[in-house]
């Protein structure tokens, strides 16, 4: 019985205070090897498939990658000109230069097995300079933020978790709002957006950087449903995350140019 009381006290402590956070970070070190262990069958399978692929499929893949590279390089050529132009325009406007973000490639080693919690575990930790509150991206968009760091791994809260929200703006016209996760990998909600706001199906929502946590201008979601009911005070807007939250294996950790904001663990 006394153990149950101790457990209850621990629950209340960890829900309502931050006292247990250092203990958790220390104990979190045990979880990475266990996740690695249960992931082993899949890794071995994948390794086997990689090892015995036919020559023709490799040649084919190589050709398609070359084609993709060519396309991206062409885009990049324009990019240099555009970036220079952007800098000149910003100088004309007397605004600060854009900070280029440094990134670190990480690999996903585990997904939270609890269907109520949208968290993933990545294979980079405090030893690689990962900090709490650091944003995580994949190739298509923003995925989430680091909430727990151990030495060699860290836990990331995805933007679809029902306890997560982040400030965004509509790319087309700059309307600022906040998107919230609802515990569904394919849907995000926008609450408290009045009926008269200009937002349409197909609008791209990008991070606005107003929470001082996520960098500006990364794609977050695409609006897929706007429902305006004159009887309701707010429009009901649903968006689909751009990042492949349940598929991406290789992800990017972004180091912003500035010094990380301290004590941002609870900030969304």
């Amino acid at each position, binding site marked *: 019985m006394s153990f149950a009381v101790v*457990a209850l*006290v*621990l629950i209340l402590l960890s829900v309502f205070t931050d006292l247990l956070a250092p203990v958790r970070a220390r104990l979190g070190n045990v979880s990475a090897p266990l996740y690695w262990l*249960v992931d082993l069958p899949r890794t071995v399978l994948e390794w086997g498939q990689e090892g015995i692929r036919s020559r023709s499929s490799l040649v084919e893949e190589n050709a398609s990658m070359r084609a993709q590279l060519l396309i991206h390089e062409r885009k990049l050529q324009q990019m240099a000109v555009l970036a220079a132009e952007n800098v000149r325009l910003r100088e004309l406007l007397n605004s600060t230069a854009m900070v280029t973000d440094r990134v670190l490639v990480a690999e996903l080693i*585990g997904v*939270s*097995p609890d269907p109520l919690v949208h968290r993933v575990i990545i294979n980079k930790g405090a030893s690689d300079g990962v900090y709490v509150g650091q944003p995580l991206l994949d190739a298509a968009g923003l995925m989430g933020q680091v909430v727990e760091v151990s030495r060699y791994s860290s836990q990331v809260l995805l933007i679809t978790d029902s306890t997560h929200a982040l400030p965004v703006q509509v790319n087309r016209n700059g309307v600022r709002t906040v998107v919230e996760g609802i515990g569904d*990998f394919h849907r995000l909600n926008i609450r408290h957006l009045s009926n008269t706001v200009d937002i349409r199906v197909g609008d791209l929502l990008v991070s606005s950087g107003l929470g001082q946590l996520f960098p500006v201008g990364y794609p977050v979601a695409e609006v897929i449903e706007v429902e305006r009911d004159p009887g309701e005070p707010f429009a009901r807007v649903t968006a689909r995350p751009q990042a492949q939250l349940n598929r991406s294996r290789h992800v990017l950790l972004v180091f912003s140019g500035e010094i990380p904001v301290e004590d941002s663990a609870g900030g969304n």
Partner: protein
Amino acid sequence: MVAAEAHNRFIIPLTYCVGLLTAIYPLAPELAWWRPALLPLLVIYWVLVMPEQISILMIWCFGCLLDILLGASLGQHSLGLMVIAYLCLLSYQRVRNYRLWHQSFFVFIFIGLYQLIGNWVHSLNGSAARSLVFLLPALSSALLWPLLWVLLERLRIGQRVS
């Protein structure tokens, strides 16, 4: 009363470890709600068959370990396991003599309570399930119980765990 001599008792934490690993084994998101809660099932089994030799502290520690693995609030699964172990200690004399399908029914209630406690802690964090879907693991656990009982009985008797 003279305590029976311990024999091969290390097998108990070993099965708990397997329980932990199945709790984090990657499953497709569609199947996530059907994952049986193996660790509580193992706790129920060992408490039912060896109520006097079982270590509550060990169960508590494994509960905490599960919390850390799942990133849950520290103590959430410990509390659930404590409640299950307590109920099993109260009722083992009856429950272990029931038939397997009858036991399954009790297992459904035990695991259901465990899930209910988990969902309550989730609700403190603001991420509770919106429907009774959180009881699905109790259903799959109850369906798994007869098979698990037969396998564990074979293990326990074969290795003469006491």
